[in-house]
């Protein structure tokens, strides 16, 4: 089946899917893991363990009573070495639990398949599993799967676009665990009573398309759509537009147009959880970039330090100049390799000097490339000007809050303007004005 609409704007980025043939390797349990109390979007969790406590794999170590939150579990068996505040690169200063592993990986007795008979059981199970959107944003899954009654959902979209360069962790999920993906889809459709499902895959992943099309032949409900490879095809609003032709209103959510979008690895995890009851304590990441000795896909315990993960991949071939959590277009640059892997991380990339250096910013020549690249039909060059002049009124008039920060504008800019950075500043200006 063909995609319904071409996304507006978009850019051709190189794919660099070097690790697409790399079968997932299991990384041995590290000596120590550090699990922060905030992986997801929403309220941080409160630690339920203290220094000296014994924990096992799957033991609840962080919980919150807030609705938009997800519980956190230990990924190793061992002893809590410390609970302390830690500043994360996203600006959050949250409690972080450091666990010394005993290497035995004893499973907590509470880990057993949940009994799920109806929608309420199902949503509770999803919450208990600690699942957050594994595509990168980390939105708690049980919230997404529980839209208000007045929102009729008729489409479940599975995001397997993986449009960021380098990253292949979702791709490996579709190859290695395709039946989990399918069974996860069926469970979600059954319990939420959704009639249609479409799996969106970029056309640079023919294997995934073939697998799902073969399945689609036997399972009539499931359709796989091959999407043109253009960035940011996998951005939620773009994916919805490409697959259904529906436009999410500014400031709205997918449910406003009757759609739930789930990452392919997330939906696959739901199937696994219902079978085993093992909460989200492991994650597959793509480790790649010019200075990684053996680029590969690795399944790690959540909380593994980037340093240890890189060492498992043969270490750095030369001194890294930049280390990213996520892809090169939207990933977060880390200030240290002592940062732990989070639930929603899908890649660790390490760049050499040449890849890391920022080109010098020069004057905008009004070429309009950013306007053509913007998938949200914004005018990045104007937003840049208004952000620099702190013109809040114009920033709002030019819809600064609609920016999804995909980075397409900065990518194409011949003057090498730091457009996304400037627009982020503009958003802060608008937000702080709102609080006055």
């Amino acid at each position: 089946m063909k995609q319904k609409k071409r996304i507006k704007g978009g850019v051709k980025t190189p794919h660099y899917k070097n690790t697409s043939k790399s079968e997932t390797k299991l990384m041995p349990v590290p000596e120590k893991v550090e699990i922060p109390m905030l992986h997801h979007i929403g309220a941080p969790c409160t630690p339920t363990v203290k220094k000296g406590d014994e924990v096992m794999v799957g033991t609840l170590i962080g919980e919150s009573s807030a609705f938009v939150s997800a519980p956190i579990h230990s990924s190793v068996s061992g002893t809590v070495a410390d609970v302390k505040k830690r500043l994360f690169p996203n600006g959050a200063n949250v409690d972080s639990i450091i666990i010394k592993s005993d290497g035995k990986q004893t499973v907590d007795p509470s880990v057993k398949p949940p009994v799920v008979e109806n929608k309420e059981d199902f949503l509770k199970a999803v919450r208990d599993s600690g699942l957050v959107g594994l595509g990168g944003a980390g939105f708690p899954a049980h919230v997404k799967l529980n839209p208000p009654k007045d929102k009729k959902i008729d489409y479940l979209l599975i995001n397997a676009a993986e449009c960021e360069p380098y990253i292949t962790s979702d791709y490996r999920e579709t190859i290695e665990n395709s039946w989990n993906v399918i069974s996860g889809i069926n469970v979600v459709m059954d319990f939420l009573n959704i009639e249609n499902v479409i799996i969106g895959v970029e056309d640079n992943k023919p294997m995934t398309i073939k697998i799902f099309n073969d399945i689609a032949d036997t399972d009539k409900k499931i359709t796989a759509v091959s999407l043109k490879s253009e960035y940011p095809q996998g951005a939620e609003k773009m994916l919805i537009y490409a697959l259904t032709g529906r436009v999410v209103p500014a400031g709205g959510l997918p449910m406003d147009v009757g759609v739930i979008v789930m990452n392919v690895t997330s939906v696959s995890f739901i199937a696994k959880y219902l079978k085993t009851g093992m909460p989200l304590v492991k994650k597959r990441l793509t480790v790649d970039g010019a200075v990684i000795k053996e680029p590969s896909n690795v399944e790690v315990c959540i909380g593994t330090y980037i340093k240890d993960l890189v060492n498992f991949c043969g270490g750095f071939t030369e001194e890294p100049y930049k280390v990213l959590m996520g892809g090169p277009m939207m990933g977060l640059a880390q200030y240290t390799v002592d940062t732990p892997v989070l639930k929603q991380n899908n890649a660790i990339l390490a760049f050499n000097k040449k890849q890391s250096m920022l080109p010098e910013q020069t004057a905008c020549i009004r070429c309009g490339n950013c306007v053509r690249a913007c998938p949200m039909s914004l005018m990045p060059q104007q937003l840049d000007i208004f952000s620099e002049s702190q013109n809040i009124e114009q920033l709002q008039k030019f819809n600064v809050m609609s920016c999804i920060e995909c980075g397409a504008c900065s990518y194409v800019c011949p003057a090498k303007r730091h457009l996304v950075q400037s627009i982020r500043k503009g958003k802060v200006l608008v937000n702080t004005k709102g609080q006055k």
Partner: protein
Amino acid sequence: MAENRLIVNSSPHMKCVKSTSGIMLDVIIALIPAVILSVYFFSYIAAIIIAVSVVTSVTFEYLYNLLAKKRQTISNLSAVVTGVILALNLPPVKSSIWIAAVGSLIAIIIVKMLFGGIGKNIFNPAIAARVFLTVSFASQMTSWVAPGVDSVSAATPLALAKVGEMTGYMDLFLGNIGGSLGETSALALLIGGIWLLLRKVITWHIPVAFIGTVALGAFIFGQEPLFHVLAGGLLLGAIFMATDYVTSPTTWIGKLIFGFGCGIITIGIRLFGNLPEGVSFSILFMNALVPLIDRYTVPKSFGEVKKNA
């Protein structure tokens, strides 16, 4: 420790290879056919005019940055582009040599640098300089000669047309006519235009709207559309000067309006004005309207909800 050196910055962490100087280089390449043909038709004098114009343009920009204690910008090659285009706007006679230097001064210092340098100028430097020169040095700027080494004075096809004399299409197309260095050969300009389109430096909107409007206008008023397209500075203006990023709108609808406006003014001047040629004035005038066009052509953002007024 290695990690103390890690670079932290806002995403994205990847940039495409296209740069301002790369774009300018593409424009220079696109101008090469016109440059070659101008030298072919008007001999060494054309080469001297172009060389003087380029060298003075770059020098003025260099000196301005030096004296104003600004970062040097000549490496972005935009001054070279201005220099070549300015030279192509001059008549192939000896007086154009010093006129080129004066033009560069106007274009680079007054029209570009004093407005804040590349990206900030309201008017296209070469166009503004040409208009300035035409008004200030009217006789030198209209001392047209026929192609060849003998410098036989000749009128331009448009001037001839005003008195009812038509020029052959083949001569118009190849450039075997009187006129400024670069506006004579339609063929050379079209090759350059195709290069710019292929390299995605420009889009079709402005040239097509501009040329189309002129052709349509000529047709409506009972004149030969093809003649008006090929004669005078229309192709040079529509392909190389009206498409200047800085002084044209950024959205495609804005570009169409801009091109349409240029076309209306051009054909208006050609048919009803005292001057035989109107391309430069039309572009200059439309340059001034760009902020206005920009304001009314803001695209509707994806998913934009109608705001309360």
